């Protein structure tokens, strides 16, 4: 009978990222920090995985195969297409965006990070601060 301690379930992270090495880098750091990480290298598959609502945080790369990250973002934020998804979406990218496009992205996502600007440790700290 376990009445006292409540074990906090590890937060589940979906990393939609096509650069294998970067996904490994993030997986390592996040796993060490106590997150449970799944990686999807393909955009369509990643979107489908996100729509299962099995994740608390989604790290969404913008430059991915088979569908653009922006498309994925729009679909996940469209209540008609994604009726139920509680996860926070953090856009990660190494692309330099036009300001109006970036503003549009930031409005739909819960965070916007430039990968080259952020070390794994800083990423972990950023996610820790998210309210999930």
């Amino acid at each position, binding site marked *: 009978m376990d009445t006292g301690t409540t074990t906090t379930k590890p937060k589940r992270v979906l990393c939609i990222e096509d650069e294998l090495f*970067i996904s490994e880098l993030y997986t390592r*750091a996040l796993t060490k920090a106590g997150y449970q990480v799944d990686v999807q290298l393909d955009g369509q598959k990643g979107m489908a995985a996100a729509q299962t609502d099995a994740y608390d945080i989604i790290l969404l790369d913008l430059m991915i195969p088979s569908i653009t990250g922006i498309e994925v973002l729009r679909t996940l934020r469209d209540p008609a297409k994604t009726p139920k998804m509680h996860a926070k979406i953090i856009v990660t990218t*190494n692309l330099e965006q036009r300001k*109006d*496009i970036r503003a549009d992205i930031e409005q739909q996502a819960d965070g916007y990070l430039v*990968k*080259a600007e952020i070390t794994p440790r800083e990423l972990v700290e950023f996610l820790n601060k998210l309210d999930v």
Partner: protein
Amino acid sequence: MDFLGKLRQQVKLYLFWVLLLENALLIGAWWAVHVYHQELSPLETLIGMSILGLFGTLLVSETAEKRVTQPIITLWQAIQHIAPQGGEERAPDLNQKQLGRELVANLANHVYQLASTVQAVEKTNSKAAQNLHANFVASSLPLPLLVLDKDETIVYANEATSKYLGKPADDLAGQNVYTALDMSFKSDDTLSTWLKNSASKTATASHKWEHVRIGLPGQGDSLLFDLAGYYNKDNSLGYETLLILFDHTEVYSQDDQAMSFVAISVHELRTPLTLLRGYIEVFDEELGPTLTPELKEFMVKMDAAAQQLAAFVDNILNVAKIEDNQLTLQLHEENWQNVIETVVNDLNLRAGVRGITIKTDIAPDLPSVGVDRYSIYEVLANLLDNAIKYSKGTNEIYLTATLNKEGLVETSVKDFGLGIDASILPHIFDKFYRNHRNRAQIGGTGLGLYLSRAIVDAHGGEITVNSKVNEGSTFTFTVLPFSQVQEAGKSLGNPSLTRSAHGWIKNHSLYRD
């Protein structure tokens, strides 16, 4: 006066006297023979008289010819004188004594006048021909061509111009060129400064500008082109300045699209950078405790180098845009306190790592400001980052924001660190300028302040620095209250408040001066 009548009288008179004289001589000769030479028979007398008569008539016709034809000769000479193929080069003396002098002079003058008129007509015809020729060239030229007068008013704009700007040529003619074309240039070398200089210094001048931008009304879209100008002072037709536009909008605007070469390069550079920085951090974590101080120092250097590269890559695109006059800002109303707090929050991490606190002092009722949030964030981040980098040994940075006496929102970032040598201070906002003394220890790209100044300038503000070696530096910049920005935008017909890195998209000469 009837010069013709006079001539006929004179000729009649002349002939009368000449013939009378000859007759008189013949009669006299006959009388002499009759009185003193009676031995001669009538036949001999007749023959003698005939011979005398013949000689006399020959003499008369010789001398008379000249006098009678002189008027015509003179006239002929006058005509030859002005004939286009040349002939007599010198004009005849119209005052010489001759039969019908006045008539000849009169006719000669008529001829001269006629000739002068003909020349004038020819000239006019050839001018018209030139105009016709020019019109053919100008109207067929597939490049926009404009001609301005000395007041910089458009005198002529060809077909291509009206197509290019989407305005009928009639609308353009008569307009001031700066009103018709809201041009913005890459630098202070603008069309109006060039025309001013040329007008005061030279008789003719030509100049080229690259990456000139014209804002199109409404959409915030713009055209990008190269401009060539030719100036000639006091042109007799009033054609003082000739302008030709070479459109490059497609080529130059490629950087606006995410898939341009520079944009892709940025992405390609960042991907390995992400890995480098990431695994350097991993090594630092895993091996840190086991490394000798020397090796640890090497790790620090690797990390600094990777960060430096990342910072440079961040700036590439912006600097490229400034160079190509493509950096555009959208000014919106923002709460300045809000903006500052965001930046300070983000940079507190970096500051904290070095044991530095950022202390803010923001005046309570600052007016809302007109800024492009992303760009002005970069300015604040750059100044704070510099302050952190150069704060060796100290642990405080002050950030203050007040309303200055000119009514502008003035923000200062003050550090108490290394300071900047007075000899370097004037160059500190130059592109790639680095303080060489500190280059080894302090990372940086030499672009941060260059970009910051470009952005502050584009906002209509000013950035300045005060510094003393080993005492620290204070960087101060101003931004305009939103009300001012809005007013300026309205008066320049730019309600969407779009600005390029070198000023309002509309390069209105009134505003500039």
